């Protein structure tokens, strides 16, 4: 743990149940990801001191912000945090410049306007100092909120769905600006979002939150590739989640074999579950390769799976295919091909199709969760 960061554990049974353990290091951008109602905003509010958990602790460096055993619950004002609210919560009666200077109370009055202008320049808002929030676009408001949050040189920057209220083009631009901004500050940043792609793009690490409980944390790509259980897999957007039985391990060939709906699949050796164990497994669509229908070719021996097209959805330049696997209970194996390839192979609902499930793409998880 970086000594400059923030560390916390929050536990309570209501009104929002919490069981959260979380760290954000200096210079680190951590995303807190989860569906609506999972308690993401509650976690931020607890860190800000706007509400207090039943038990746990919040520590910044060696300073305690919350410690019920010692009767410590530091005021919001004295935690010195920067908070960008989901709807920005700008002060509607103050112009852009005043919205920032009001957070610069720690400076001499003469320096405040200078510093505020510098901050507005930093978020690309130079020249709009005299506008009221009502006269700004959504993206501009977000920038004011960010400048205001940075004004106190905060111990931690808390961003609550900061990109959700703007259109897609603006969102992309703001995300890039945040990525650029964080190269110039050491402030720990905690970003709350329900958008996985956003977390993948921006975060060094992410925490998956579900019903107030942190289920897994790690580098975004790792969490996505190796979810801890079926629940995490679902939460990070996987749709190909199935159950199987471990048949055995073959260390010599470096393979583990599982039985799924009456057929045998091979994957890279994973001796964690003993033979006979019930497991869940997950596969990303990128690791499902469709066989050409007109002429079978080699390289189709890897975990061949046969079925027929149950769903076909053209989605821009790609075609999303839902394959009803022979002998399966009706849950679909989903993958995508280019629209061009779908046409050439004459994919249509009901058509018989074979695919290979690449061994390297299969990830086993313990059953349950």
């Amino acid at each position, binding site marked *: 743990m970086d000594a400059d960061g923030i560390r916390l554990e929050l536990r309570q049974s209501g009104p929002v149940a919490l069981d959260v353990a979380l760290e954000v290091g200096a210079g680190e951008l951590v995303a807190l990801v989860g569906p609506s109602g999972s308690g993401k905003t509650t976690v931020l509010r607890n860190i*800000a001191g*706007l509400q207090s958990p039943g038990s746990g602790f919040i520590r910044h460096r060696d300073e305690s912000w919350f410690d019920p055993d010692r009767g410590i619950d530091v*005021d*919001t*004002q004295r935690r*010195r*945090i*920067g*908070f960008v*609210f989901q*709807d920005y*919560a*700008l*002060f*509607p*009666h103050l112009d852009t410049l005043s919205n920032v200077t*009001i*957070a610069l*109370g*720690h400076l001499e009055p003469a320096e405040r306007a200078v510093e505020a202008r510098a901050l507005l320049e930093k978020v690309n808002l130079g020249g709009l100092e005299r506008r009221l929030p*009502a006269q700004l676009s959504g993206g501009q408001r977000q920038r004011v909120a960010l400048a*205001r*949050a940075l*004004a*106190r040189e905060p111990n931690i920057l808390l961003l609550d769905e900061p990109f959700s209220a703007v259109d897609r083009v603006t969102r992309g631009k703001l995300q890039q600006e945040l990525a650029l901004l964080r190269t110039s500050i050491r402030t720990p940043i905690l970003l709350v979002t329900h958008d996985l792609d956003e977390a993948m793009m921006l975060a060094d690490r992410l925490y998956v939150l579900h019903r107030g409980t942190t289920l897994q944390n790690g580098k975004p790509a790792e969490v996505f590739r190796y979810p801890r259980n079926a629940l995490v897999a679902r939460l990070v957007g996987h749709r190909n989640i199935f159950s199987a039985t471990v048949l055995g391990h073959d260390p010599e060939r470096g393979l583990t074999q599982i039985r799924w709906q009456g057929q045998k699949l091979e994957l890279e050796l994973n001796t964690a579950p003993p033979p006979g164990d019930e497991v869940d497994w997950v596969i990303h669509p990128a690791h499902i390769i469709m066989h050409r229908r007109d002429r079978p070719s080699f390289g189709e021996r890897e975990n061949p799976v046969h079925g027929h097209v149950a769903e076909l959805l053209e989605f821009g330049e790609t075609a999303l295919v839902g394959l009803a696997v022979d002998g399966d209970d009706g849950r679909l194996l989903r993958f995508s091909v280019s629209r061009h390839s779908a046409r050439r192979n004459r994919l249509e609902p009901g058509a018989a199709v074979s695919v290979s499930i690449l061994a390297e793409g299969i990830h086993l998880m313990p059953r349950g969760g």
Partner: protein
Amino acid sequence: MALAPLAIFLGRLLAWGDFRGKSLLEAMIALPLVLPPTVLGFYLLEGFGAASTLGGWYHALTGRQLVFSFDGLLLASVIFNLPFAIQPMQRAFEAIPHNIREAAWCCGLSRFEALWRVEFPLAWPGAVSALALTFAHTLGEFGVVLMVGGNIEGETKTIAIAIYDRVQAFDNYTAGIMSAMLLLFSMVAIGCVYRLSRRSGYDGR
């Protein structure tokens, strides 16, 4: 004027507070709206009288009486104007989103600074309409004033009562002049108040 700080305090308390007895307090504040002025006046008379606890204290403290005096009239005004002052303030404070206040704290503003620099400017239109309503209501109040203040020249005689007096004495000419003055004064005062609120720049949305 004496009512303003009380109205701000109670309005804010009612808008954001969540405490036991909130409904009871709200109901009590709203009572003067529905009670006939004479009923309110009667209870105030009883409550302020030298024989009552409150009246006794006041007499012991200042050597003056609450009943039939300017002091008592002022206190009575505060009480019967409560709903007119507090309800607009309460609505105005309620209209400020919670997170605006929290954003102020996150900016390092103390609770008092947040109230003074953020909440109050935003509640200003509500304060203005509270002021206007209270003012208009005070000028027009008749029943309670007559009950508590009596009708003592130079002490508790309000214009409204003076007009009533003149009409009773068939002095319609003087009554007419006083009525016209009251009308004009009210118009000008309320007009000024509304104008001020519009010029405050922030129109509430």
